[in-house]
């Protein structure tokens, strides 16, 4: 424990802050121009970007809770990176505003259109849930819950650094158990509200679970990328061991497999059922050019990462995980794009059978995820610099970093 545990964030990370801000700033300007030119196209791209970056913050919160319950050195090493990500939760609350505006202005979801709701039996039936006031109430509840968890997790962890009070470790564990349950419920309903209701005739109980797994995967990759970048510098140098990277690589592998398991199950069950409410969702995503994206996801979101992450020589040194993590994150954006984009030019309800989506990309679809990523990453590094990179006084500390054992 002779390492300088309170060393500041190394330059390998802090030097990324300025480029992130530049990307974010240019992207923001481009985004505003795009919004003025074509608000609807802006919203469509914005929803992908928001779902992705919000998912990273939420996924980090989930992993933070999981590691308090499971223990293990990987969790202690990742903890400050994850905490910095969850402190971006307020940013996501602010960044939700354009989506709320799009909803209120009836530009994003068809269930906000009164005439359409009245004319459609299914939409009319769902109106008690899918309406703007209730949507807004739920939205406020989600963010209050998420911000509260982020606040408590960060506050107690910082207090633990300062006071070494044993009670705090217990508090954090006691929060994490019920916390995960509440997170699962809020994530499920926010997914139904924000993504599933884009095609409100369609429903799939697996969909929110795929999204949760995707968030976990992307957040894990993001965290591992930063830890691997900093691993040669104080305070991580000498502290991180091969087995920590192996654990992190195995977790990435596990989430890749879970993503495949949940996605494949949804496809198989929908395919076998062949019901008019469900099948158009896939029809829109495997025809009209979208099939190539689906094949890309199969090969690059599953097959390639799966094969690569099985190799110890990739996991053990840690550094290769930077490249694999970046690759998986890119695929996660493609996955969200494939989920969201075809919803907009596809026929809804009775029209679903004869009006299928064709592949299309708007320049904002590429600019906005990068722009939001720039702003998110800038804030993230700013938060990361605020605290020592290794938490102190964790009761599992000694065990996790003992040489040889576990």
């Amino acid at each position, binding site marked *: 424990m002779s390492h300088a545990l309170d060393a500041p964030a190394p330059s390998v990370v802090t030097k990324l802050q300025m480029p992130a801000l530049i990307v974010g700033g240019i992207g923001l300007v481009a985004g505003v121009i795009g919004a003025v030119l074509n608000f609807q196209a802006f919203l469509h791209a914005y929803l992908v970007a928001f779902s992705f970056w919000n998912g990273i913050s939420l996924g980090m919160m989930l992993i933070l809770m999981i590691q308090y319950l499971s*223990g293990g050195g990987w969790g202690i090493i990742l903890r400050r990176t994850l905490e910095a990500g969850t402190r971006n939760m307020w940013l996501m609350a602010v960044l939700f505003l354009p989506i709320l505006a799009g909803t209120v202005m009836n530009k994003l979801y068809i269930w906000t259109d009164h005439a359409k709701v009245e004319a459609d039996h299914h939409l009319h039936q769902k109106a008690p849930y899918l309406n703007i006031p209730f949507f807004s109430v739920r939205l406020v509840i989600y963010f209050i819950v998420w911000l509260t968890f982020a606040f408590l997790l960060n506050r107690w962890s910082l207090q633990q650094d300062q006071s070494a009070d044993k009670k705090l470790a217990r508090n954090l564990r006691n929060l994490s158990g019920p916390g995960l349950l509440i997170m699962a419920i809020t994530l499920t309903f926010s997914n139904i509200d924000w993504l599933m209701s884009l095609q409100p005739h369609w429903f799939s109980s697996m969909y929110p*679970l795929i999204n949760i797994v995707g968030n976990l995967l992307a957040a894990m990759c993001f965290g591992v990328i930063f830890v691997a970048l900093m691993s040669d510098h104080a305070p991580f140098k000498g502290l991180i061991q091969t087995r920590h990277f192996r654990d992190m690589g195995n977790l990435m592998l596990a989430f890749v497999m879970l993503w495949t398991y949940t996605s494949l199950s949804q496809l198989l069950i*929908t395919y076998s059922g062949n019901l008019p409410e469900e099948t158009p969702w896939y029809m829109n995503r495997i025809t009209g050019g979208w099939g190539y994206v689906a094949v890309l996801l199969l090969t690059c979101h599953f097959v390639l990462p799966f094969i690569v992450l099985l190799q110890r020589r990739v996991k053990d040194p840690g550094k290769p995980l930077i490249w694999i993590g970046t690759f998986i994150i890119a695929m996660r954006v493609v996955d969200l794009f494939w989920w969201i984009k075809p919803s907009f030019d596809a026929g809804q309800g009775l029209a679903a059978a004869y009006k299928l989506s064709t592949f299309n990309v708007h320049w904002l679809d590429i600019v906005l995820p990068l722009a939001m990523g720039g702003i998110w990453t800038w804030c993230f590094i700013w938060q990361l610099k605020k605290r020592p990179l290794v938490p102190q006084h964790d009761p599992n500390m000694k065990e996790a970093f003992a040489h040889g054992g576990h």
Partner: protein
Amino acid sequence: MAAQNDQDKSMGTKSLVPIIGPGHTFASVNDKISAIVLLRGTSFGWVVGFGIAFMIFMMMLMSISYLLFRGVGIWGINNRVDWGFDIINFVWWIGIGHAGTLISAILLLLHQKWRTSINRFAEAMTLFAVACAGLFPVLHLGRPWYAYFLFPYPNTLGMYFPQFRSPLEWDVFAVSTYASVSLVFWYVGLIPDLATLRDRAKSWIPKTIYGIFSLGWRGSARHWHRYETIYLLLAGLSTPLVLSVHSIISFDFSVSLLPGWHATFFPPYFVAGAVFAGFAMVMTLAIPVRWVYGLEDFITDKHLENMGKITLVTGNIVFYSYLMELFYGWYSANEYEQFMVHNRLFGPYGYMLWALYFCNGVMPQFLWSKKIRTNSIWLFVISMFISVGMWLERYVIIVVSLHRTFLPSAWGTYSGTFWDWSLYIGTMGFFLTLLFLFIRLLPMISISEMQMLLPEAQVPHKEEAHEA
């Protein structure tokens, strides 16, 4: 020793309850576990217990005989509800087996050392549960002597390929793979212990029998090296089985169109339910066994607490699924789905649903309390509730969805007959008979793995061989 103490201290509150009692040595672990098989002899209590179990097992054989004589008409199934007790019990038993696989495979890969004292027992339970489960679909065929039609074998009937598009066919492969991998895993783990029994047995009969089954194990370094390698490989092979078996069983329902069956989240929902039921059964059996044989040093309160935690987690996943079933039933805006929800809640079998929510939704919530998680009586009671709840869950899913489907003129009701119950209860006798024999004839706790937990066995970097 000092290193171990140091480690214990550093773990803080977590290791206050250790995973092996204090003061044990290699010899005392050997003595204590092997004595149950070799020295204690056949106790009166064991004979009584075995006798009762065996009589119930005979009831199963009688039920099967009568079934073969008369046909499936003696069951309660009818034209409307054509899947009844047979499939409910099949899913129930298969689910129970899952704890064994999870403990032996996934917890091994996750370096959870506490699994050691319960894995042998749980794996045996898996095998016996799969044996019970396998009976039901075969008997449900009506002509079980044609069960081999399910396998793709070269024949003159032009049936090289059975209906591969049916998940019932996938079950054949999933369950038989599961049974064979579990058997091999269990047996490989037993080999060093069988050799111990061989060496310690006094009379020539057990010496010969244990000798044959220990395959010439001498405990050389080469033997151990190969043993560790194959054990890790089998753990890797078993891990997907935890997910695949119950996922495929869930496909039996979810690939159909029936409201209450066709839901995309069925696979993880069923897997969580299976692990939930499995851990409840492990606790139901381990708590009395540890009490009867005085094994509190090996199956400690820490074990019970950890099992309680896994039960709580999986129980909440299952409860989430119940609530989501209700929500999506409504959100679908499909009148059949909505009717299914209404019929479940308030239909003729409504009381079963509420009982199910109580058993699987309310009772596990007590496990949030550490006091209850470390109290074996509480755990035993909660486990019993869960076992009943998981049976009710399958009853609700299968019967309640089938009895009122799309066409009201085709509605009907269902209830199990005497022969349904006698076969179901009979399989419990079958299960317990096998379990009694297992406890009497084989070491129910892994001797060699328990010895590895001792401070003397803690060689630096020893664990490297374990890591995936």
